[in-house]
């Protein structure tokens, strides 16, 4: 019973935290474009290849 006195406020605070996080994300324009960010994860990272191979690789512009 006394546990509830701790858990309920914690749950509410946690929930409120998420609401504020959502508000921050919305205000910083993160929800304005929901399509393009999904494509950004598909970007190839040429710089990564360069460091792994330890060889000078020119920034590749491969044809599609």
């Amino acid at each position, binding site marked *: *019973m006394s546990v*509830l006195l701790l858990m*309920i406020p914690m749950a*509410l605070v946690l*929930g*409120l935290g*998420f*609401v504020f996080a*959502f*508000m921050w994300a*919305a*205000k910083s*324009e993160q*929800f*304005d*474009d929901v*399509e*393009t960010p999904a*494509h*950004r994860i*598909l*970007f*190839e990272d040429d710089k990564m290849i360069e460091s792994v191979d330890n060889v000078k690789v020119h*920034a590749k*512009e491969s*044809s*599609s």
Partner: protein
Amino acid sequence: MGQLQQNSPRIDDSYLDQENFKHLYADAENPNLIRFYVDGISCSRCVQKLESLPQTKSQIRSVQVQLGSKMAQVEISPSSNFATAAQLIRDLGFYPTPLRARTNAEDLEKISNRNELIRLAVAAFCAGNIMTFAFGVYFGLEGELKHVFDWLSFVLYLPVVTYVAWPFYRGAWQSLKQRQLSIDLPMVVASFSGFLFSTVNLIRGEGSLYYDSISGFLFLILAARFLQKSIQKKAFSDSFRHWLPLQEKVMKLGEGTRWTPVESLKKGDRILLKASEICPGDARLESVTADFDLSFLTGESCPQTYSRGMTVPSGARALSAEAVLQMERLGEDTTFGKILSEVRSGFLKQSNFMGLADRASHLLILSVFSIATVFVIVYGFWDLPQALERGLALIVLACPCAMAFGTPLALTMGLRRATQKGLIAKSADVFEKMGRIRSIFLDKTGTLTKSKLEISRSVPQTLDSDSISYVLSLENISSHPIAFALRSYLGSSKAEVRLVQFEEHREVPGVGVFGRIDGISYSVRKGLDSFPRSVALFREDTCVCHFLISEDLEENSAELIHKWKARGLEVFVVSGDQQHIVDQVAQRLGLAKENSFGNLSPEQKAEMVQKKPFSMMVGDGINDVLAFQKAFVSVAVSGSIRAAMQSASVYSSTGALAQVDLLFQVSENTLKSVNRNLWISVFYNTVGGVAAMLGFVNPFVAAILMPISSLVILVSTVWGGRE
């Protein structure tokens, strides 16, 4: 798609850095920021190429792409210029067009969208948590903990009654001011009186608390409305400015011939119009002769020849290589200018169409209010506390929440289905309007007939490769619609074509193309009279072969028109083309001569449409815009100017007449769905209302019934609408 080219064709972008253009395109807050519409973007790879430009080119500081609208926001480094940015984008294989700087209206809209999202998040948080506590109580929680939970529900309801319910308060107030009932009104009454009575009960320590049910349905309705709005907007997401057919710049002659924004042209300015540019105002032709395409104004793509001194109308598209003109009238003083401004303002106009769903909800609101009031008064004489209790249950339960939720949902599903079939509707009231249509007006060119000039066949049917190569070589210098038609017709023949060099190779506007080889002159010009509506290749004066120009009707047109006539609709053909040609088309479609109208100007078309009530106008091209605005429902058929979409109720992406028939079907199905939902909510309200008055309803019952009714409506909409 997009190969690295170091030397792309030289296109002059330097005008972007001229003062007069910078003030149009550069962002108001950041002078190094410019937005482009980038044609050619189609996938993640394209986005990556553009967004990683800053990594390899120091002239560009950042690029941010929006895939949905194909917009790229580019920030240049202060030492560079916009022309370089445009050229770098071109080098990647894309086609950038500058976009106007962000307007205040766009910014405000973005902010209001964000606020709506935030409101939904708060509503969900409050409703969810209130329900968690309420269910603890429903399942038998008692004593001090129950007391704590109830007060927690109260605290969580405070943001609901103030912030979340705000759009309903605003909507109810506005409709009251206009002396109209709207569905916001009972929502306001329910949420506010629910709050009031529940709080009184809370303080008393006994009686029902309805915080959970009310916050739950407020959230559901906000979510349904948000969904409807975002689906409607998604179809119209591109920035419409890039669709306006008038280009933004034109070459002005004078001291320092240079590019000038169209809007800064004045009467008396002399301009040089290049091929396929659009004349920005009524202008007097100074060149000896020039060809123009007037399809924006008349819908007909047959080129017109103008000679020196004649006035070329605003909206005419130049076909000759270069034409010098002097501006006489600009902007809204010209026909085209008037049409463009109607397009702009029509887009923002709100429709005040009162649909069936709205009127049904008015009825329900009135009945619920009156029944509740009468009940409380009558029963109150007997047992006041019980009367208030049952009255509250009645209002919460019988509040037309199911209706408020069900109608937007059905309409949204309808919109989605229409979009899947290629029909993009501007708003959902088109469905109900379609049910009331009594007459259909069809534009001829581009709607009934294919919009481009096409060659149907050649005479003789098979041509030798010499003839083909001569025709193609002669037409190589021409951008006349007939040249395009010949190129696409002959390009489709399998023979290998080699282009031939002619001497004295020239295009004579209004006549044809001429050239000479080994002393023999060849030409492609109007065919012999025995082949009306044709062009022919001539060797000296002998005809080698003919190409017949077709005006092909879209397939199935006649069947569809027959189907519509069978439903009792009147069908008319209206066109700017000559009467006898329109009559031929009407005849092939099975329409009577009285139903075919030719030689109509855009204003005359609009007049005809206005005379018939409940008319539907199907057309394309900006010349139908005036008629669109007078019609009850208007359908813009693609193949021509997409700007027509801004004033039409529906845009058909494939352009086939069959889509108009599809529109009828989708509308019928959607209306059936709306009807079904209305009946379900009437049933639910009746049963629930009676139960409330008899005292069978308490918060627990309400908390169960409400999601059940919403679920039933959801299922009925999604499942019942399947074809």
